């Protein structure tokens, strides 16, 4: 699968939840490349903005889309990586809010 194909697939999945991919295409393409790199490295597409521990069970909360996405988009308008955004920000390529990490630091490494 190419990064472009992955983007198309993820955009379709996000649309079912009313979310969009970020308007900065290069940012999204880089994120898709990183997701594929993580798939190759760990065997699953874990969040490229977080350090995985290589244990799928322990990393299950940060497999993209992570379980924190809904709350992050509701509060900040974007997910932790600013990959998924709300409808309100779907056309803004400069929208990069400072999203606080919700993950419990005791999880993972």
């Amino acid at each position: 699968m190419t990064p472009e194909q992955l983007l198309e697939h993820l955009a379709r999945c996000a649309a079912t939840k009313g979310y969009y991919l970020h308007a900065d295409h290069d940012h999204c393409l880089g994120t898709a490349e990183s997701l594929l790199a993580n798939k190759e490295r760990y065997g699953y597409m874990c969040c490229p903005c977080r350090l995985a521990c290589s244990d799928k069970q322990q990393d299950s909360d940060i497999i993209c889309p992570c379980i924190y996405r809904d709350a992050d988009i509701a509060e900040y308008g974007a997910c932790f990586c600013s990959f998924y955004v709300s409808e309100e920000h779907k056309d803004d390529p400069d929208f990069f809010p400072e999203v606080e990490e919700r993950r419990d630091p005791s999880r993972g490494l």
Partner: protein
Amino acid sequence: MNSTVIVTIVVVIIAVVAVLLIKKKTSSTLDKDNSGHEEHQGDQELYALGMNPVSPKPIMYALTTCQHCKNTRKFLDENNVDYIVIYLDEYSGSQRSDLMEKVRTYNPRGTFPTILVPGGKVIVGFRKQLMQEALLHDAGTTA
């Protein structure tokens, strides 16, 4: 007669040197085998620095996959800031968890990038304004 003795001595010396070299090579191979896993463990010098971050340059703890880290690097590069980057995802096993623990001493949430500025300031995330204040106005941190 004399020349025979000299040749014998030379042959013995060569043999001894050869045996010593072979022993040394075998020993270093064994050391490597005993060092454990064949996993990629990143740059050992950077690992040591990451665990004991005393540096005149800013040190950035980052992930190779993180867009915020890439944007931060781009910003620092464009502004000619001389810095050191340590990619935690290039390490595995105990080295990865050691480095993560170290990052948490500066940034309890353990997020990336985490930048240690000489003097003790810590910048978390892609924060242009904070980097400008901490890195671009300080003499000695720019190339």
